């Protein structure tokens, strides 16, 4: 029965909006489901409506033009899409999504589905990371963009990746004192990657500008660091690091923003039945997709950071490309020249992405330095030592088993936050390599489901012994 239902897009960030735009242009009326109250995704998140008047240049800096274009694109098609903001997709089952919106659950059947679910910070703990005042990079950026507030008065930035310098720069521009930028990547690795960066001189220029701006404002920048601990009684008051020479450095601060890249939100793809593969660049299991965004499940398409980290520009292109694939699969005419153009640009971005990954490599030894008492899964209070123990004793050789035995990944976040670390710890302890410990199976609900808001329509009884207690 393909083609009888309107296409459904999950996510209204750059990928979802460009996908919707392309489908509308083809005369379809897609459903756009998004958790946020306003469109834009995380990267182009808009402030709450009413009372906020900061200009886009202040909110998005260099990306103001792109942010504005994406916002306008959605505004232009607003009347021709079935737009569902503030809506959580909590399950995907048998060709339908389960939505939670304004205190009710609704089942939305689909024949064609574009998942543009985006990404969150990849959180890799270090001692003291659960202290108040320690934030992820993305979280601290959202605070600035969405709420117009800083996470602290004197903020230390820790981790690696382009976002590290970007957010530090944004904080400095917003008038916040930046205590330092501490990059886990060695200076040598970054220097080696610089020639490759010339493939995208604009991005390189921006990066250099951020660094230059930070330096001229007296912000210390250190490469090749490893976190030792965040210190503080009630709240973080210092960040202690080991520098490239092995010396400990203590930096007083009242907030830390840290992050080691991003992780894709893949749960829906998993529940939709998509096949997964291990991606070396992202150090993560990702749903398989072809160049056009088709998953292994007919009718399910993947676009943007939700199925592999490539950034906002790539997300816009991939969203449109997935929409074109959907149209092709529905036997609708598409513009071949546009398809070729998108494919070419996506290929170029992918090549540059490899350069960026080389410039900001994942610190593979991160898990080794974690003390046994470091909290890994804060939902359930599971320590590094507990995970190492089940691995060393032979009780757990993969993620789901470790979860069953230790509870890591069993709490409110269902492993969305802790599973990257759990995988690092298990694989380093077992010596398997990052792809050797499998991945957590997604389970509904994808995010916590408030019982009060669920008023199901009465179902007919099946006449089975359903009510018997099980064990």
């Amino acid at each position, binding site marked *: 029965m393909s083609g009888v239902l309107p296409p459904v897009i999950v996510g209204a960030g750059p990928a979802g909006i460009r996908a919707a735009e392309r489908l509308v242009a083809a005369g379809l009326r897609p459903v756009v489901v998004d958790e946020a109250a306003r469109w834009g995704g995380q990267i182009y998140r808009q402030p709450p409506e009413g009372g906020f008047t900061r200009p886009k240049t202040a909110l998005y800096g260099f990306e103001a033009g792109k942010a504005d274009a994406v916002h306008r694109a959605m505004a232009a098609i607003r009347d021709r899409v079935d737009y569902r903001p503030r809506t959580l997709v909590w*399950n995907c*089952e*048998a060709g*339908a999504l*389960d939505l939670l919106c304004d205190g009710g*659950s609704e*089942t939305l059947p689909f024949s064609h589905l574009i998942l543009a679910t985006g990404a969150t910070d990849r959180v890799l703990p270090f001692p003291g990371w659960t202290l108040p005042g320690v934030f992820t990079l993305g979280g601290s950026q959202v605070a600035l963009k969405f709420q117009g507030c800083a996470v602290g008065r004197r903020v230390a930035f820790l981790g690696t990746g382009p976002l590290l310098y970007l957010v530090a720069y944004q904080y400095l521009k917003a008038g916040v004192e930046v205590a330092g930028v501490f990059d886990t990547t060695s200076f040598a690795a970054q220097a080696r990657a610089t020639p490759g960066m010339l493939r995208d001189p604009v991005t390189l220029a921006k990066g250099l500008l951020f660094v230059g701006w930070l330096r001229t404002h007296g912000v210390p920048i250190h490469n090749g660091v490893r976190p030792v601990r965040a210190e503080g009684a009630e709240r973080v008051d210092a960040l202690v690091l080991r520098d490239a020479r092995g010396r400990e450095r203590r930096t007083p601060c009242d907030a830390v923003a840290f992050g080691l890249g991003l992780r894709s939100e893949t749960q829906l793809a998993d*529940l939709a039945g998509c096949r997964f593969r291990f991606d070396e660049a992202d150090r993560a299991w990702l749903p398989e997709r072809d160049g056009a965004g088709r998953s292994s499940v007919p009718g399910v398409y993947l676009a943007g950071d939700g199925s592999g980290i490539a950034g906002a520009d790539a997300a816009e292109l991939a969203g449109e490309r997935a929409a074109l694939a959907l149209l092709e699969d529905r036997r609708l005419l598409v513009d071949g020249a546009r398809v070729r153009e998108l494919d070419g640009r996506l290929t170029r971005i992918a090549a540059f992405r490899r350069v960026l990954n080389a410039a900001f490599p994942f610190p593979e030894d991160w898990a080794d330095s974690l003390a046994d008492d470091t909290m890994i899964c804060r939902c359930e209070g599971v320590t590094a030592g507990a995970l190492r123990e089940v691995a060393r004793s032979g*009780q757990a050789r993969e993620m*789901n*088993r470790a979860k*069953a*035995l230790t509870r890591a990944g*069993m*709490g*409110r976040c*269902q492993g969305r936050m802790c599973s990257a670390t759990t995988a690092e710890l298990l694989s380093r302890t077992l010596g398997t390599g990052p792809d050797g410990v499998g991945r957590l199976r997604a*389970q*509904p*609900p994808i995010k*916590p*489901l*408030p*019982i*009060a808001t*669920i*008023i*199901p329509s009465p*179902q007919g009884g*099946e006449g*089975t*012994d*359903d*009510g*018997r*207690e*099980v*064990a």
Partner: protein
Amino acid sequence: MRERIECDVAIVGGGIVGGSAALFLRQAGLSVTLLERDWCGAKASGVNFGGVRRQGRPLEQLPLSQRAHAIWGRLPELLGTDAEYIRSGHLKLARSEPDLASLIDYRERSQGFGLGLEIVTGEEFRRRWPALGDRAIGGSLCPEDGHANPRLVSPAFARAAAGLGAVVREQTPVDRVEKEGDRFVLLSGDDLEVRARFLLNTAGAWSWRVAEAFGEPVPLESLHPNMAVTEPLPRFLDVNIGVEGGGVYGRQVPRGNMVVGGGRGFALDADRARPQRDAVLTLMRDAAELFPQLRHAHVIRCWTGVEGYTPDRNPIVGPSRTTPGLFHAFGFSGAGFQIGPGVGQTLAELVATGETAMPLEPFRIDRFQPTA
């Protein structure tokens, strides 16, 4: 190069029954090889609701259930862990006079099995369980029943057996099983051949395959009990709760999370199942009705598993009717967790001594065959 293992007993399936049988066989001094195609205790034994409950079982199960009860009392000594097992009591609620009458009737009929059931109604019921408010007119309490964490208990049996010298092989599916003379021969791919004098078929929902290989077809159906758990909440409940007439059951773990169950999930394939949306929503509604404390809580995870059900909802336990040396124990129909170790011990007894005092007649494998 195929590895060959010779032993007294081969066990197919490392759940709570196979794992406990392996443990007791080692205690009796027999050599054991346990083959598990996934991880021990990862299937129904490890993902069930976690109720450790005798109350409400058919009377014919109570001897085995009582036997298991004694084993549950010795977990730390047997397994080196208490696996979060608590003798909290199991309270079965009655929402109407007829339901209460049927609880009273069960208490009468189960006299002599030692459950120590206590009927509590009216003022006293509300005084003892104020959290349950007025959604029940009374209940039947089995004070020594309780609950445990199945994810910890079930793997621990196989692990303890391995600690006593059982050969436990996980990720080892059995592809072929046959009898050559007085030896059972089990093959796992080209890697492993196990030869044994005895064979225990404790493969849960997949046991029908082994039974069929020995000419004993059984009408075993796979079903998928639906579970959900909330975020941790303030403690309001210490007993494991069931309801006469069914619908929903629940327990609060010491950490504060409320585990509830009811309804059915659906099969993804022969090996995997998922919670079903309508069952999840109905379960949430029913649970909130029974426990108003849940009304403002979140469900953080739903799950289900694959469990073998028989037509009469009693398990198949005992000797094969076609093949000497083969013993079956499966088809617990969603109620195998508590009774499991008692069944494992009985299988070990049958192998080691050739007999048992346990009345196994109701659990004969051939009871579903049309009588000629």
